[in-house]
């Protein structure tokens, strides 16, 4: 059995294209997705001016607001160009006379430049809120106008006045905690997508084994049909596990991706690899040609991945689509990883997901073994 499983694994890497698709391509995709969303979705705000003390105070407040990434730009022209070309989400032009205007109690205008996008409006609102807060003492000083501006601003900043306070409290955990990086999310999705896809396309080797008469030759050796079936099944699982481990280890080493509780993550990967192996066994036993296997493999591998939520977050799905998604093993595996990563779950917390995946695997392996046995002894 081990010999049959081993030869499957060796053959996976004998095909040089597999080295790219199994080893390099998933890691590259994780890197691309991770970097694309790697800034934590904070929009880039270009700022000009802000060299005087009050202006610097405003810029510092914007930087510490956490709602944007402040980028210094040379002048208004460069800022506008950056916005137009998409390098910046928006730009804020702080005039040179900002401090002087405030201290003289004269109106000052900050120019906000953005594209016609909803995100820009949100960013504008955030800037307005920060500006209101930062300039409150200056406005209080303008109201009083009894003494020097600096003194009035200092005193206004120290005043604690009665008013309406909104008290925030949080309950539960964030759907996607801030500790979860975009690399974590991308790696989980790509692991499921590629593990299943590689398994299914790898089913072509099983068809080739049958077509070349190798299965029958194995059966002519002193090994039982059960051993051959177990060997082929183990081969499929080994291929799936190898793909999964490459992504897990590679993304962990290169991008610091975390997978949560090791025992839970290991069990989840094993269960999902069993599903992938079972599906490959069925495809390899039921179809006739390698071309059919590759076609069906791509169709199922990508289709189920899309439906199952590995291409777009399942949190964005409608209720109906979520139900549909949970007809795929991918959605259950994603739920499992979400439990491990977002809620620091353990293997005990993902037992339902493991159970469903095990049921998927058992059904697929049962059907695949039945079909392959028939092909062997026919």
């Amino acid at each position, binding site marked *: 059995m081990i010999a049959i499983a081993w030869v499957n694994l060796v053959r996976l890497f*004998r095909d040089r294209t597999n080295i790219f698709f199994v080893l390099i391509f998933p890691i590259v995709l994780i890197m691309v997705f991770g970097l694309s969303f790697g800034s934590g979705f904070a929009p880039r705000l270009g700022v000009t001016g802000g060299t005087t003390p009050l202006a610097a105070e405003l810029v510092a407040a914007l930087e510490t607001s956490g709602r944007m990434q402040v980028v210094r730009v040379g002048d208004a022209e460069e800022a506008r160009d950056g916005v137009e070309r998409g390098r910046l989400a928006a730009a804020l032009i702080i005039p040179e006379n900002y401090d002087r205007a405030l201290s003289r109690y004269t109106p000052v205008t900050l120019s906000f430049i953005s594209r016609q996008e909803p995100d820009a409006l949100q960013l504008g609102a955030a800037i307005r809120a920060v500006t209101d807060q930062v300039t409150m003492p200056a406005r209080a000083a303008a109201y009083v106008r009894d003494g020097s501006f600096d003194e009035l601003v200092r005193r206004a900043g120290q005043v604690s006045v009665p008013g309406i306070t909104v008290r925030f409290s949080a309950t539960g955990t964030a759907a996607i905690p801030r500790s979860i990086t975009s690399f974590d999310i991308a790696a989980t999705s790509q692991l499921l997508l590629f593990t299943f896809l590689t398994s299914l396309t790898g089913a072509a080797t099983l068809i080739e084994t049958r077509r070349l008469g190798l299965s029958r030759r194995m059966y002519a050796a002193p090994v039982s049909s059960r051993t051959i079936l177990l060997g082929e099944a183990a081969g499929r699982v080994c291929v799936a596990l190898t793909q999964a481990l490459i992504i897990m280890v590679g993304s962990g080493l290169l991008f610091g991706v975390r997978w949560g509780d090791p025992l839970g993550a290991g069990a989840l990967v094993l269960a999902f690899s069993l599903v992938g192996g079972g599906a490959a066994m069925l495809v390899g036993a039921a179809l006739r040609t390698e071309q059919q296997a590759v076609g069906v493999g791509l169709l199922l591998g990508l289709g189920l991945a899309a439906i199952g939520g590995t291409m777009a977050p399942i949190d964005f799905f409608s209720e109906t689509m979520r139900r549909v998604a949970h007809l795929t093993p991918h959605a259950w595996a994603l739920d499992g990883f979400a439990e491990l990563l977002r809620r620091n779950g353990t293997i005990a917390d993902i037992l339902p997901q493991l159970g469903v995946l095990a049921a998927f695997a058992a059904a697929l392996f049962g059907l695949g073994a039945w079909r392959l046995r028939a092909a062997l002894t026919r």
Partner: protein
Amino acid sequence: MGTAGLGPLPCVPPPDQTARVPRAEILKCQNLRKTFGDLVAVDDVSFTIEAGETYGLLGPNGAGKTTTISMIAGILERDGGQVLISGRPHGTTSRWGKKQIGYVPQDLALYPDLSARENLRFFARLHGLGRAEARARIDEVLRMIGLTERAKDPVKEYSGGMKRRLNIGVGLLHRPPLLILDEPTAGVDPQSRNAILESVAALAGEGVAVLYTTHYMEEAERLCDRIGIIDLGRIRAEGTRRELVGLVGELDRISLTTGGAQAVPKELETLPEVRKAGSHEGRLEVMVEDARKSLPRVLAAATDAGVVVRAVEVHEPNLESVFLHLTGKALRD
């Protein structure tokens, strides 16, 4: 059991000239039957093979040869009859029986992306050879099939003949007392074909019982001690080449070219082995039962009678005519 080399070997002695000595019976098939739906693929097939004997199953495509040997190899359930390997019942679940058989399928059942050595190692493991034993045996088989130099190359880079040789090598790995070869020369060049036939003959010479299926009459005649002619799933006749030819009742013909008109000399006509003699267009045509045995005496008689013999040709009735006689159709139909 020893090993056989693929180097040039002496021509296989004509089977009929070898005195048959009873040897251990390795394979016995009794009343084998297999149907696929309404189609009776194999019907009441029985034969035996002894150690060192080469038995040929000769028949056209679709005659039931592969189905028969699939049942013998234990990869196809039979519907009736039984297979005995060295007296022990054998079937699809018989591990002992499968250890006694080296099965060489018609397909090139090899992993194309693995090397010859890796293919051999894989099947050695399936046959339960230990690591050290497998390594030694693989080296031995590679030498035997002439692939030592190319052992590390992927099989997909091999020529057709090299693949065929490796296909046979896999079947020899575990030193089986019974070798089943299913059309092993299909699609190979004449040189490789000759090498394969010589190596099979050498294996039989070393005591291996060989079951050889082919639809090439020449191969069966050259290689096989006994031949079973199979058609439509049934063995139509069985025996040595001579016995089969005897069924048809045809005689061997010795043709002596004399270079001119020549009456049949009395010395020749009265030889006991001569059944009939005549002259035709500068040739003496002599009909005998066994041309190989009779040729020296026929030549001597002609020379004694003063006939100048310029050329000699021997025409033996072949299996093609036997097959035609038995089935009413040509062998390659």
